[in-house]
């Protein structure tokens, strides 16, 4: 069965689960699941997400050539499943987390250390068969590096800047980093546990706070998933307003992060300049939608806030001013050799690794992996909009920054098109609850592909919901790119990735 077989041909050996939209879900028995793991070693199918249930494990797959998307599920009543992480290292942390949360053992996985569970919850396997524990924290065994003159630098979880908590363990020789290992999970809030059993509206509020900087993308993915599960069609104006908000969010994040990267290279004027531009975006958000970060503005059924009468001119003015100011800043960046010297050739991510881990967003696109969920699989209204997806091959900090700069230009172009073509009509249609269902949403956040999977009950409650952050596939790559760089360049590399701690930790 090895060799040329498409994803859908392979999965058709399983049982199709009815009521899963818009992409199918197949249940595989133990033998077929194991063959899937083998097939992963010879195919270019990508893992987009992997998550658990008390007695079932799910993996979201995409066939890279065909673009076909499907969920493969494997019931494992005996509490174990054959690990995909040995064939696909991007799944290792996901499977360690599945073991922590649901108690399903990934068989054959070399790294069986806990990931999200630090031993402090007072309970093991909280989402599977919970067992009380004494709450004594685990001793975490970091990977080692041995050799003459090697020393360790432990950093975190509380960092020096205003950033999220996580632990970094460096092994260094002099200034050069020999090995970096991350330990995350500090901001694990048990979001999947909180979502189970909540009414859709309450769940939407929680999903909007999985990662605050990508709140629009999460809300949008959740809305797509719920609407798919219930077979609901949001009104056209809502679809366009959602895209408008998503582009404002992308714009605000890219602007600030480009400034912050330069700030980490001790070039603070970029941060001041771009921080002021970001403020313009946030104020336009507040004026048009009533929230600076646009939290809870995208809801299942439509959007919670329509544009006021002066909304279009406010946004146009903002886009004009931001566009002008941004080009000035980029001129400064392009003409400051001491800054370029820091960003060029620093923290190189090879294309091979980016593909192997399925890294999305600007991290992937700066290393020649040119996928964008707005095009692949694509969703409305982006099929009616013209925009370029910048791709570079260098994979260094400069390339990631440049890709983000191009995305700012693309978003400004999109804003203009959306404001021109914005259809009239209602901005929301109440959700009709007609029966249970399962749905999936894949949305491009500023950081990459956000996936939300949901199962809704007859009474309109969320039975189970899994939000997946693009950072899962980017964090491990940061460990790879820092190797051979100097410690002082770590903040630069880290900021150029800007992975979400909260989104990964859930």
């Amino acid at each position: 069965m090895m060799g040329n077989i498409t994803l859908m041909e392979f999965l058709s050996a399983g049982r199709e689960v009815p009521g899963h939209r818009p992409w199918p879900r197949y249940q595989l028995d133990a033998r077929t699941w194991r063959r899937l793991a083998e097939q992963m070693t010879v195919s270019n199918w990508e893992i987009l997400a992997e998550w658990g249930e008390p007695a079932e494990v799910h993996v979201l797959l995409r066939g890279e050539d065909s673009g076909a998307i499907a969920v493969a599920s494997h019931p494992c009543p005996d509490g174990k499943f054959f690990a995909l992480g040995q064939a696909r290292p991007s799944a290792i942390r996901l499977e360690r987390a599945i073991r922590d949360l649901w108690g399903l053992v990934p068989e054959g996985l070399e790294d069986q250390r806990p990931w999200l569970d630090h031993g402090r919850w007072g309970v093991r396997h909280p989402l599977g068969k919970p067992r009380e524990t004494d709450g004594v924290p685990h001793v975490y065994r970091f990977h080692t590096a041995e050799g003459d003159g090697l020393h360790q630098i432990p950093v975190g979880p509380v960092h020096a800047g205003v950033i999220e908590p996580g632990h970094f363990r460096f092994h260094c020789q002099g200034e050069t980093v020999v090995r970096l290992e991350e330990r995350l999970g500090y901001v694990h809030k048990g979001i999947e546990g909180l979502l189970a059993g909540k009414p859709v509206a309450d769940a939407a509020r929680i999903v909007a706070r999985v990662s605050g900087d990508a709140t629009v993308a999460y809300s949008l993915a959740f809305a797509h998933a719920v609407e798919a599960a219930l077979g609901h069609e949001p009104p056209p104006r809502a679809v366009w307003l959602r895209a408008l908000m998503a582009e404002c969010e992308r714009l605000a994040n890219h602007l600030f992060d480009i400034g912050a990267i330069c700030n980490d290279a001790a070039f603070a004027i970029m941060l001041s300049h771009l921080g002021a531009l970001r403020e313009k975006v946030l104020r336009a958000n507040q004026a048009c939608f009533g929230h600076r970060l646009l939290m809870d503005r995208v809801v299942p059924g439509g959007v919670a806030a329509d544009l006021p009468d002066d909304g279009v001119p406010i946004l146009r003015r903002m886009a004009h001013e931001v566009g002008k100011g941004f080009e000035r800043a980029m001129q400064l960046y392009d003409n400051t050799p001491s800054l370029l010297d820091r960003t060029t050739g620093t923290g190189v991510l090879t294309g091979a690794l980016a593909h192997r881990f399925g890294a999305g967003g600007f991290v992937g696109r700066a290393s020649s992996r040119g996928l964008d969920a707005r095009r692949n699989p694509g969703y409305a209204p982006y099929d009616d909009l013209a925009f370029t997806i910048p791709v570079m091959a260098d994979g260094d900090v400069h390339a990631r920054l440049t890709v983000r700069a191009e995305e700012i230009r693309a978003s400004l172009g999109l804003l203009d098109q959306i404001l021109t073509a914005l259809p009239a009509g209602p901005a929301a249609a109440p959700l009709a609850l007609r029966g249970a269902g399962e749905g999936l949403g894949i949305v491009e956040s500023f950081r990459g592909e956000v996936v939300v999977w949901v199962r809704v009950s007859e009474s309109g409650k969320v039975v189970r919901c899994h939000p997946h952050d693009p950072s899962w596939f980017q964090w491990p790559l940061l460990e790879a790119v820092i190797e051979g760089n100097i410690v002082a360049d770590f903040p630069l590399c880290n900021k150029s990735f800007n992975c979400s701690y909260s989104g990964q930790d859930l």
Partner: protein
Amino acid sequence: MPLIPPIARIIARHLLKGPLTMKGAPEPDPAGLVELGDALGLESRVRLGRSLSIRAVDAGSCNGCELEIHAVNNPVYDLERFGIRFVASPRHADVLLVTGPVSWNMAEALRRTYDATPAPRWVVAMGDCGKDGGCFAGSYAVAGGASAVIPVDLHIPGCPPTPTALLSGLLALLQTVSAK
């Protein structure tokens, strides 16, 4: 390289146009901000020598609050003109600004950060989560609001609080401090 270097252009533009901070911003009210700054200056002088050093600790936040903390440091709000600044270590801080619900995985780190802060010290819990855990309350992984782990002097509500709310919250803290 252009004839006039871009950095010279940017600096010249700001010199000619004046700072972004005070110019016709719709909100917060610039006069209000100056007022806040004046009051802040007067009272902090009594105890804290005109400056307030803040150490931000994310105890489990979704990172929304961090975005607004970044915003109060941007040139538009320019927190530092009031003598308030963010520092890199709890040992340099007068105030701990705690964001998020406290996750059990961060509880010890938060307590240790508090212990490392020299007295007199004050704790400000930022955001709805910092008050009682917000929408994350009740989870097996969440201890509750910041007060579940360390004593809290002030809550600044909002999800996330706006930069203006954050600033007026810090002012309220100073009033409490001087009343002590």
